[in-house]
């Protein structure tokens, strides 16, 4: 009987240890403050809004998408993404970009677009005429 618990306990410790180790290894933090994104040396998931006024450019030859993103405080950064323009990009209200800030821009390796219209009616901020 004792052997059973010893053996089982050992396996659980190894399993939990391995999982804990891998969680810390593959862990990516969410960051909604762009100033912090800029100083962070690790890969982060930066959340914010696409600055629509500044539009985006897409370089067909090098497949580079360049656009600007801002956080709730209005801090902005340039984002460069190597890949196609994501499907819902134009209607996206907020974005989650995964990558690293370096040399004046954020090099994203993935972009997640979030479209409010998908699951809930679009409520529009507007002013009366």
């Amino acid at each position: 009987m004792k052997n059973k618990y010893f053996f089982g306990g050992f396996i659980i410790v190894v399993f939990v240890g391995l999982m804990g180790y891998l969680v810390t290894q593959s862990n990516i933090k969410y960051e909604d403050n762009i100033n912090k994104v800029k100083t962070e040396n690790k890969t982060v998931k930066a959340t914010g809004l696409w600055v629509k006024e500044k539009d985006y450019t897409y370089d067909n030859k090098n497949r580079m998408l360049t656009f600007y993103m801002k956080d709730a405080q209005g801090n902005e950064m340039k984002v460069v993404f190597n890949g196609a323009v994501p499907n819902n990009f134009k209607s996206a209200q907020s974005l989650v970009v995964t990558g690293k800030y370096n040399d004046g821009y954020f090099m994203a390796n993935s972009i997640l677009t979030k479209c409010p219209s998908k699951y809930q009616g679009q409520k529009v901020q507007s002013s009366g005429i």
Partner: protein
Amino acid sequence: MIGSVVLSLALACSIISMIMYYLSFRGYKNTLGYGRIAYHATAMLVIIAAVFLWRILLTHSYEYEYVFSYSSNDLPLGFLFSTFWGGQEGSFMLWILFTTIIGVMLQNYSSKRDDLEPRVMAVFSLALVFLLVMVSPWFKNPFAYIWAEPVFIDLKYINPSFVGLPQLGNFVFSDNSTGQQFIKMTSELRNILNSMGVTVSQFVINGKGLNPQLMNFWMQIHPPMLFIGFSLSTVPFAFALAALMKNDYTKWIKQAFPWVLAGAGILGLAIMLGGYWAYEMLGWGGYWAWDPVENSSLIPWLVSIAVIHTMLVQRKSQSKGGVGRFLKTNLILCIFIYVLVLYSTFLTRSGVLGDASVHSFVNPGALIYLFLLIFILSFIVLGFGAVVYRWKSLSKFDVQDENILSRELALFTAAIVMVASAIIVIVGTSAPIFGQSVETTFYVQMHLPLAIIIGLLNGLSMLIKWKKSNWNDVVKKGLFSLLASLFLTILIIVLGGVYDIMLIILSFSSSFLLFVNLEIAIKIVKGNKKMFGAYVSHIGIALFILGVIGSAGYSVKQDADLVKGIPTDVLGYKMLFTGFKPIDNNTKYAFNLDINKGDVFYKAEPVMYVSDYTNSIMRVPSIVVGPTRDLYISPLGFDDSQTNNDHGQHISIDKGKSVAFNNINLTFESFDFPQETREAMMSGKDFKIGVTLVAEKDKLKIPFELFLINKNGQRSFTSFESDKLNIKVTLENLAASGKVDLAIANLDNNNPNVVKTPVETLSIEASIKPFINLVWIGVVVMVLGFFVAATRRLIESREK
């Protein structure tokens, strides 16, 4: 009104049914009949509500918010039918619909087995009560009217003949940045319309439509399948609680077994259909991305698989008399299946994962969050509370250990491996709640060793007997499988170029799993076919793992630009882009590719279009399906703005940099973009943006400015000519990031108007997915196994 009333009545009936069934369990004599009537009334009302929802969708009754938000006039019948589950409210309705129907079957089933019915149905009705509260008018009611909460409706959805009415003045709004106009729909507006004799459905004449990504055949099947699986997960919970209520644990295994098997089969199939949809529709080339929504349906499935193994042990060990082994494990896992279904609903529907999922659920409000939390907590307290309450009597049934080489232990280990897998996925999926997230490598690295264990363990356990075995026996029986799998592994290494040590071990372990089960299956094909289920399922798993090794581990991909008319080599295929044609009433474009490899010719047709719904480019991949590999082609972009220009050249210059052209140095100095221009641009007025440049040759230095002119929404560019320098510079584009594109040509050319021939270029990402067919075949085979086993256990459950 009708829909809400019907749903409220259904809620009332389900409460009555629960109470009546509970009273019958407590010994009341004449309450059982009422419980049954109330339950069937609930079912009837839910079906009526569902039919009513379909009716308002099919008749385009846009006075309902749900109809307006998820359907439109142009949807074909099939998709209109599936808009039922296009949004949250409807998908809850679908879940409820299947739950009630399964409840009717469960009532029939349990009424024929001892005194099972009152207990099982009381618990089942309770689950239904909670679900019905979810769609009640306080929460996610699919029958809410569009004016119930003020909502802004784009003018294009409004009947034009009413737009100009002076009474509407107060309700018209416009969005300054886009120039779009909206009507604010409120109950006040509805009253005004009604007083003019206009109904809201005459006023709002079109809806926003369905998300184009959901307009796919598989999306018509996947959600219903998933919700059947979710609904079936209530059943093991109900059986476990029923056993705990009566404090009698012998028969419940036999009675619950077919339900658990059928549930696992259907949920597994549903998960695969979702994966197939992603593969065929989303264009990222994969079938599984460890997305929270995918994960959250995987977790309860993994636990179902675990409990199937330990339930089998309990069932088998009952032959010696007594309740059998692993009673506590089975009860706890059966409770967990449903709790985890609720947890996954919480994760995906409450908005806690807002930032983590492509399924981007917007925060549905604090109220629903709270209710979902209460829902889960109630069932956790109820389920595990009952286990704790009975812990003493449960502990009486604990049984001593068996030999290491017994099939019982192997089955238990299998359950542990499945639970471990479930824990991994739960940890990874729940991380965003704590502001963290894990990369998909986390899941992959954790699952590689588990998959290896599964293969070896299962292969071995099939060779050993119940109770005790000795090693000689095992080796003798497994010799063929061992040799065959070694052979196959070597084949995979040599032919497939598999050199990763973990993948080699995994290939061996899954081959072993395959051959052991294949051998046994062939042996029993002549004998007792009802024993088939387990072996078939395990063959399916083996095929699946082999398919994953091939398609995930050995997929190669390449980006390519295909110029129309020029064949290009991509991944060993010759691809020729022959042009595009409009399809689906000119709303989409299909890009035609002629592909050949040697003498074999294929055609591929990736599609791109701009969706009104998302206001973005949508891309649909094209898949050339082959027996051993798929060629997967995702369109990335199409460009016909580039021109072949014989007498000049196109260049782009970064701000502050220079470029040389025929000894002329061209410097891009700055943008001329004053504040007024910015303001004009923001408010949508006409504007022009200047670009200051300097052309230099020898000592000659000529500064000049080019403009982007935006007039009435039309963009045009200016050009600069200099006789001294013999140059013409035309602005072609500018990017806010600090870059301009220019066309430069010499003026003294015989033909000063440069001949421009447009070049059509299709950019694609091509990838090869070796043996991806095994993934689909594997899952289908596995599911078949589940149904064979479920049928066998259903017949068994009828035996006294």
